[in-house]
């Protein structure tokens, strides 16, 4: 059984008529995702690759019951779109939009938590359960996604959308398939952190190992280390961290919005130390990741 979503998940796209919306609709449909309707206020009656477009989510759901939504609207409209999705009872919200003000993000996440709704993102390329479903731009066009991602027993959780595909591709090259790959989002505050997702992987019988891609900034990696140190885990976890050089340049921003070292907080050195103390393997070089996963799986079987 897949976590978060599978081929039966009925999906809405909010902002379906925009550039990102049309692209990810095409790609996800081609991969087998059940996109049942789209919403763009003012464009009701249109259709995008055969998917009917509505002015409001309520209208869309009257005709097409759904479980999940992908939000790819401009930043200023993102809070409204997320509230609309929460108010209409969707259970999974994937927010692609980048550069949403942090106050808006925390407001929508607080309401999502109150309603028990899972949010992935903002600033995510989405998620993919290889061979089952692709929700969002992750992996690109369906044929490219099929080349990089193959079904298997390794989960990938990544703060970078591009690195989600890069890591899956490396695993695939090494003969290691993936159970679920989530681009968790490059923002400082995201709906699903490593720690939020680990219990789901823990409960998923298919998943045996996890690859984590971390970056400077914030304390998500430290929180994961803390969780594993306290709770333990049956999963073999291998982490890789990009941006070690950023430690030497506090206050300077690189890559994603979340990548900034403030004082000692958020440094890669601190993250590596915390992860290792919790018994999590940390790859020094990216190409060691599949090797460490193979070693860990061989040890645990």
């Amino acid at each position, binding site marked *: 059984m897949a976590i978060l979503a599978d081929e039966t998940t009925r999906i809405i796209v909010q902002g379906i008529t925009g550039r990102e919306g049309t*692209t990810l609709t095409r790609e996800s449909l081609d991969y087998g995702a059940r996109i049942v309707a789209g919403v763009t206020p003012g464009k009701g009656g249109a259709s995008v690759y055969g998917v009917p477009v509505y002015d409001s989510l309520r209208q869309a759901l009257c005709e097409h019951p759904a479980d999940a939504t992908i939000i790819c609207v401009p*930043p*200023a409209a993102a809070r409204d779109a997320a509230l609309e999705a929460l108010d209409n009872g969707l259970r999974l919200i994937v927010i692609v939009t980048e*550069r*949403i*003000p*942090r*106050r808006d*993000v*925390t407001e929508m*996440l*607080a*309401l999502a*938590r*109150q309603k028990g709704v899972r949010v992935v993102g903002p600033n995510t390329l989405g998620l993919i359960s290889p061979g089952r479903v692709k929700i969002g731009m*992750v992996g*690109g*066009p369906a044929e*490219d996604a099929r080349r*990089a991602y193959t079904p298997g027993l390794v989960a990938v959780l990544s*703060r*970078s*959308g*591009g*690195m989600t*595909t*890069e890591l899956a*591709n*490396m695993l695939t*090259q090494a003969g290691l398939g993936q159970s679920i790959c989530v681009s968790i989002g*490059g923002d*400082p*505050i995201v*709906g699903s*952190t490593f720690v939020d997702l680990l219990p789901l992987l823990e409960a998923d019988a298919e998943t045996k190992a996890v690859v984590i891609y971390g*970056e400077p900034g*914030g*304390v*998500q990696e430290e*929180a994961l280390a803390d969780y594993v140190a306290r709770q333990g885990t049956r999963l073999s976890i291998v982490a*890789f961290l*990009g*941006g070690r*050089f*950023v430690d030497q340049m*506090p206050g*300077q*921003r*690189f*890559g*994603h*919005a*979340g*990548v900034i070292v403030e*004082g*000692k*907080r958020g440094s890669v050195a601190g993250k590596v130390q915390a992860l290792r103390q919790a018994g999590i393997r940390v790859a020094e*070089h*990216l*190409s060691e990741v599949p090797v460490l996963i193979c070693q860990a799986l061989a040890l645990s079987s």
Partner: protein
Amino acid sequence: MRLNEWEAKTLLRAQGILVPEGVRIQTPEQAAEAAVNLGGPVVIKAQVPSGRRMKAGGVRFATHADEARQVAAAFLGQDLLGFRVNEVLVEAQVPPGQELFLAVTYDDIAKTPVILASAAGGIEVEQIAKGAPAKLVHQAVDMCWPFSAYQAREVAAAMGLTGRDLMAVSDVVWRLYELFYRYDATLAEINPLVLLARNRCVALDAHIELDDDALGRHPELASEWGIRPRPSQARPPTPFEEAGARIDAADHRGVAGRVVEFDGDLGLLIGGGGASLTVFDAILGYGGHPANYCEIGGNPSVRKIRNLTQLILSRPGVRRLAVIMNVVNNTRVDLVARGVIKGIVELGLDPRDVLAVFRIPGSWEAEGIKILRHYGVPFCDRTVSLDEAARLAVERSRS
């Protein structure tokens, strides 16, 4: 965007929080005049958007106007903590009192705003947290619930305050949270907040950071308070970096952003966000000397890539360029290849000499390979990892 101290204090004052009486000045003469008008000893503070100003010598005291003039003259036009000092704040000295620490920021794990407070202020919060975590009050704010004054009183009580002190400090806590929320701050910190006789609280120093992604909805910052939006970085951009930002801004298609100058000889065109960090680490790890950091992605146009290529190759001492990205999802390999080749050829150079490595597998890869092959440039496919590509680039940049 990190505000200067005077900007932060302008917002505090507008919010009804007391700050020392003071004047922002640009010349030594104005400093002397300010000292006379304030009457009595003053403190003179260089206005640069950075912490640790006290340690760096950016805060000095003066007892009379002449001294104020001399100190201001010593500050103005000098570099402090990587920034040019163009303005100085002259403030009346505040009598000593109990020093408190107050801050509102976001907690990325709880995903809520959090109020941090301590009755032992005046030093860095990291030290308070490290030395005696029990002394640091940490109160999460539920965004589903309207913020109300009782929450501020809870914070003041947890700080160990009572009576009128509790009422005075909780009033500041409440106003600081309002400021944080109203202006889309990501950090609003007062350290120290000095508790004076008759329960007066004065914010001696303040550190406010505003959310870059929300500046667009606060035109009042410029129109009412003279606070102009500017890029957030730890140091001012170099001309090279400014040129990079112009190339990015000139064309909305794709990103060729966050260009950062380094002093090496190997030019880099790398992306996306995560892979560029990974590749930069690997280049350094193999002993390479990058001339720049940058981050391309989101399907940039041929023109954007060409311009960026030419910018990087125009730096003195840069002879080689490495083009490395993760397996791309929506960036077209062929467009990047065309932009890079065009940029090099137009400079009258041979792509075979300039390109140390070209590794971008993914969308439109076959078309990209055709272009590169035509110019005799080797292409690394997805079987070559990012770090292996970085190693090859360093090796070839030495030949």
